[in-house]
């Protein structure tokens, strides 16, 4: 009898599962297109019209390609996406967006208004990347898709991910971006994607003042920005230093060359920045690099300790010079991706700072750099 009652209860529970399944709207994957990447441009027709290009995955047996491209125009991004959806037999789902690409013109006008659509929707991941196209987003996505035999959306995502994982550029995820955008003492930075020789590549980083594109820096400089903020491991660095101090070490000095080109592997790199004088806005940054010498453009006859010390010193000077140049570029564009303003805010009396206030002060900041390079070894060759 007891067993009987349990059996009835069990059947009841099982039946309830069947009905409960209908409580949520079902989404069948074959009927949906999973948006992977989309690009945002301001339409040529009107300033208020947004044009989006959507790369999405479809899971259809008949489809030759997994990725499809759709375009749409609208006053808001959602409207544009919906208009794009009208030209497709699939329903678009936004939950897997990995990359949002802004056209250059859009970025120049400011990405502020295009950011809230990404934050408002809880279904979107905070780990997606944001990037800027050197031309329009449409150009990159279309041409890229035509030329590349691989899938475009995934390709670009991997491209950016590779650079972040390899410590070449700072993290550019949506979370990091909103974080810096909302931080008055720091400006956002995004990878700049362009088409070179029909290949999509990251050619540098876009500088922003608040939300407006104001300039770009090279990938080499992007690495310096990253080194300024994060710890760096296992990253190649190529430097050109003056050849003159090394003349006596060269095994076969060739004429008409004035620079020595070197490749190092940074094993560990870190930096620390402190505010030394709040009135003068002067900072002191200590950069520590542990490197391995990989390649030299010319051969040396005797790589002794003195040589190593000289090399360290010259590399230190070069890194210092590069940082100085970078700071000048940043101050010229009045964009502070280094986060000097955050340090300033942390030491300010009431701890309050506005972005406007900081952009007035940032061009006057000075950094007293102190680079310490330690050559760990020179490979198996002595």
């Amino acid at each position, binding site marked *: 009898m007891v067993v009987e009652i349990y059996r009835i209860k069990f059947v009841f529970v099982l039946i309830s599962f069947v009905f409960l399944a209908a409580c949520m709207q079902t989404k069948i994957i074959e009927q949906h297109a999973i948006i992977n990447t989309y690009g945002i441009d301001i339409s040529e027709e009107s300033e208020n019209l947004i044009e989006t290009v959507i790369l999405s995955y479809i899971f259809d047996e008949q489809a030759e390609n997994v990725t499809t491209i759709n375009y749409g125009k609208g006053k808001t991004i959602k409207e544009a996406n919906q208009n794009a959806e009208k030209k497709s037999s699939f329903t678009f789902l936004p939950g897997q967006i990995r990359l949002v690409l802004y056209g250059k013109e859009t970025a120049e006008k400011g990405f502020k208004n295009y950011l809230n659509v990404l934050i408002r929707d809880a279904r979107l991941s905070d780990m997606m990347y944001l990037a800027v196209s050197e031309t329009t987003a449409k150009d990159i996505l279309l041409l890229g898709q035509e030329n590349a035999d691989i899938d475009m959306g995934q390709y670009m995502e991997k491209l950016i991910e590779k650079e972040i994982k390899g410590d070449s550029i700072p993290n550019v*995820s949506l*979370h990091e971006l909103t*974080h810096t955008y*909302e*931080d008055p003492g720091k400006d956002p930075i995004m990878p700049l994607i362009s088409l070179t020789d029909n290949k999509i590549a990251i050619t540098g980083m876009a500088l922003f003042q608040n939300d407006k594109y104001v300039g770009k820096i090279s990938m080499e400089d992007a690495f310096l920005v990253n080194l300024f903020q994060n710890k760096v491991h296992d990253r190649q660095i190529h430097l050109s230093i003056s050849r003159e101090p090394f003349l006596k070490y060269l095994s076969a000095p060739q004429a008409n060359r004035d620079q020595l080109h070197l490749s190092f592997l940074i094993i560990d790199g870190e930096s620390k920045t402190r505010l030394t004088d709040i009135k003068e806005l002067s900072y002191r940054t200590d950069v520590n690099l542990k490197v391995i010498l990989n390649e030299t453009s010319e051969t040396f006859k005797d790589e002794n300790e003195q040589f190593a010390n000289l090399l360290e010193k010259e590399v230190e000077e070069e890194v210092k010079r590069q940082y100085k140049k970078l700071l000048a570029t940043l101050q010229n564009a009045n964009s502070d991706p280094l986060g000097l303003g955050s340090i300033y805010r*942390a030491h*300010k009396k*009431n*701890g309050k700072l506005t972005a406007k206030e900081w952009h007035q002060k940032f061009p006057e900041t000075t950094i007293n750099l102190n680079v310490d390079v330690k050559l760990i070894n020179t490979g198996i060759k002595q």
Partner: protein
Amino acid sequence: MDINVKVKSNLRIQAFYLFFLISFIQIGVGIMGVPRFIFKESQQDAWISVILASCFIVMVISAMLFILKQYENADILGIQTDLFGKWLGKLLGTIYIIHFILAFLSVIITYIEVLKIFIAPNLNNFVVALLLLSLVVYSVRGGLQAIVGVFFLFFFLSIWLLGLLVEPIRFMHFNHFQPMFQASFTELWKGAKATSYTFMGFEILFFVYPFIQNKQKVRFPTYLAIIWSSMIVLILTVISIGYFSRDQLLKLEWTVLDMFKIQNLTFIERFDYIVIAEWMMVVVPNMILLMWAITYGIKRLYQVKQKTTLYILAIVILIASTFIDDYFLIRKIIDSVAEFGFWIVYVYPLLLLPMVLIKKRWKRKSGGRDLSH
């Protein structure tokens, strides 16, 4: 109504379980958004506000324990009748019950709102409320001992969520805390007051006290529970200040849930879905205990069968939570619960304490009889 409650010894619980009851009911739904509310008042010094609030709670809970110790086996309803007489006692008891009903309603509508925002915008309020309430009804029918069992199990089933915070900790910026000690005492105090909704729930001690078997051991689990829940709120506040920049923090509705958004593993892309579903294990015990307190209180005050109140109230809440789906209305309900609860939970026990002491002295003078007889 008897001042002291006669509870059969087989229905009693060990004092040790108070830890689970109190720490769990304190956490509830409020914690999902609390760092923002504290930060709004005391900025980067928000963590001091949390410590301040916890100290205040320790003070309140000491007062509560002191009041309860004056009686042999009484709950708040009995104590109020003893102090203020039959009618006023009943009125005050009813206010407590209303507070619990409102708290219950705020928990269920907040959780449904979170589900709708984070998981499925087209979720039917009625279905979710029905499912949650059927669990509540089922557990409350089991009595306090079953409820304690639920708390014990769900505590361990949900505690691992804290482990997921490792990822946001990695993204913390420590200069968000600087410059330290900038907030004035008023700001700190306002920040502490902003935690009132989250920390609410320990007033349940006034109701479960008569059910405890070994009363001499009540202090330790109670204080431990307060410290535990304060630690959790403190940790979450510290992480959110470090993880979000200040303007970002002020704009996010569910600060704590947003921190789980960056968590992903190869086999599961979005961990926040799991976190929100898992949060049911935090929400359901809360609702169960509140519902038990309501039905038990009404039985004590008006001699209505617990079963009757349970079913009627479940239906009323079901209807109410089906229709309350407007964001601003939900905010208003939560704010009024917080405001109303602040006086009942945090201020009232401190006012009650001198009255109990005066009454005790007065009785001793006039009759020399113990209060509890």
